[in-house]
């Protein structure tokens, strides 16, 4: 295809703009990495001496360890419970007719548009009114509500893409509804369930604003512990923790992209 000089110029400008924007996106991650390996407690660019000691300090810091344990507890309970509740309800929305269907669905989807500080305040007031201690139960319920919309969507999309003829075939061969569900529907839904759970778990582990309202000193999750650390200290152990976060997340996503096709999940693949 012949290109004019003008088109080539446009192309060069376009590519440079994109590179600059990608630089803007990656800048914080690059800078935080530099800061994490800096031996001194005071920021200096570029670092004069390199060291791993902030990583050691971050891993050994008791608040981060407790935050990680609490966060893992909350995440596992919240995302797994949300997966069971959400998958069952998505199935019911897709297949069944029942009273208040739209109303329940609307309420469950609404945390997507309600600010997390409002959700957090709501559960805090509710717990206070009911006289509940600020224990794990409140945090987990709050997280279930926050991640449910994502589980619902993920499972609902896979249900829509499922060919109902498999289930009809099983049923016409005499399988009971329970057996159809366990041996046909569930296995076919597995990828949707897996990605729904993963999405919910990542979101729950990283949730900050609502958690700040509903956690106490004893139940604070990792993001809350990090927030409290940033407010009190300025040494680079927070940078080291951020680097671990960034590396793990980027690896997970690269892996997910290679095996699940992130473009398809995000719906940005070109349709031909």
């Amino acid at each position, binding site marked *: 295809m012949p290109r004019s000089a*003008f088109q080539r110029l446009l192309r060069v400008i*376009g590519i440079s*703009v*994109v590179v600059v*924007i*990608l630089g803007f996106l990656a800048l*914080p*991650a690059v*800078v935080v990495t*530099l*800061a994490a390996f800096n031996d001194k407690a005071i*920021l200096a*660019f570029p670092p004069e001496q390199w060291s791993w000691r902030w990583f050691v300090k971050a891993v050994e810091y008791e608040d981060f360890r407790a935050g990680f344990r609490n966060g893992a507890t909350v995440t596992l309970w919240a995302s797994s419970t949300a997966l069971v*509740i*959400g998958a*069952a*309800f998505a199935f019911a929305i897709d297949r*069944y*007719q*029942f009273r*208040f269907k739209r*109303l329940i669905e609307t*309420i*469950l989807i*609404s945390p997507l548009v309600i*600010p*997390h*500080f*409002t959700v957090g*305040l*709501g559960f*805090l*007031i*509710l717990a*206070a009114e009911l006289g509940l201690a600020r224990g794990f139960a409140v945090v987990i319920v709050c997280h*279930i509500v926050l991640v*449910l919309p994502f589980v619902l969507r993920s499972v609902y999309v896979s249900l829509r893409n499922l060919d*109902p003829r498999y*289930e009809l075939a099983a*049923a016409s061969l005499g399988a009971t509804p329970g057996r*159809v569900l366990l041996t046909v529907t569930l296995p076919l839904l597995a990828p949707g369930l897996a990605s729904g759970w993963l999405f919910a778990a990542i979101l729950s582990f990283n949730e*900050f*604003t609502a958690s700040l*309202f509903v956690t106490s000193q004893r139940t604070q999750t990792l*993001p809350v512990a*990090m927030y409290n650390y*940033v*407010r009190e200290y300025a040494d680079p152990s927070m940078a080291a*923790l*951020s680097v671990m976060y960034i590396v793990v*997340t*980027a690896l*997970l996503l690269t892996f997910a*992209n290679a095996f699940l096709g*992130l473009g398809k999940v*995000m719906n*940005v*693949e*070109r*349709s031909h």
Partner: protein
Amino acid sequence: MTAAVSQSRPFVYLEPSPVVTQQPFLRVFVTPATLCAFGFAVAMIAVLQYSVRAYIPGSLEAGGFTLSNFVALLKPLYARVFLDTVWICFLTAFFTLIVGYPLAYALVFTPNVAIKSFVLVTVVTPLFLGEVVRTYSWIIVLGNNGFINSTLLKLGLIDSPVQFMFTKFGVVTALVHVTLPVMVIMLAAALSHIDRDYQKAAESLGAGPIRTFITVTLPLSAPGIVAGVTTAFAWTFSAFATPQLIGGGRVNMVSNLVYQLGFASFNFPFAAALCVAGLALTFITLWLFRWIARPLERMGPH
């Protein structure tokens, strides 16, 4: 719960299949979700209820019914925070659109698979990092002895550090970074569903690349722009850690005020009133925006 049978499917009466005509496990499937919805609805009603209760200083209990919380919102101090919040949300949504569009365009139209994956992972990673890590990173970039200031000082371009922290500029920069992934995903979704033939037709009729973009691609991506801007606005409105840490008390948004009132003075009724007013404000702004953008949205391919 009634089990109304769906009559809309044509094959139901041809061959009654147990999967379709009965609703097995209906109660088991719906009850847990209904309980969740109920719990959440009660929590939101609690906020609504507290917003019209009186504050009793020194007590967590709320007093009698009153509208004084909403009247207090009109005080210049609080009205200013509301205006600032809306302004910051507008700026963030606008700049996120400007920065996000080229990236979404490159993501969709690059023929190179490796570049596409690289762009996608770079764009999506920040989405999963959480607000605290991202905000902390920006503090290191923007701080007085942070990356930008040390670099500029070393190059001799400035004599004393430029103040980025505790300014609107700093807050908006970090917020643009926070909302960019969502914007790019929404724009890319719209761009990827444009039929390539429209662009080819424009080109074959002699339109240059700029003209093709302005008269064909841009209007066809309008639904993505509307969705992206709306989402960016709502996300920015609910941001807390970024204005709290980078604004440092000098740039306040509604979220920061809610937290201060709730945890510094335990004034839950007023915090609840702020939440209710904030929610109303978001919905009105977004509704206005959608109303203005309606002709734009009709230009979309669907």
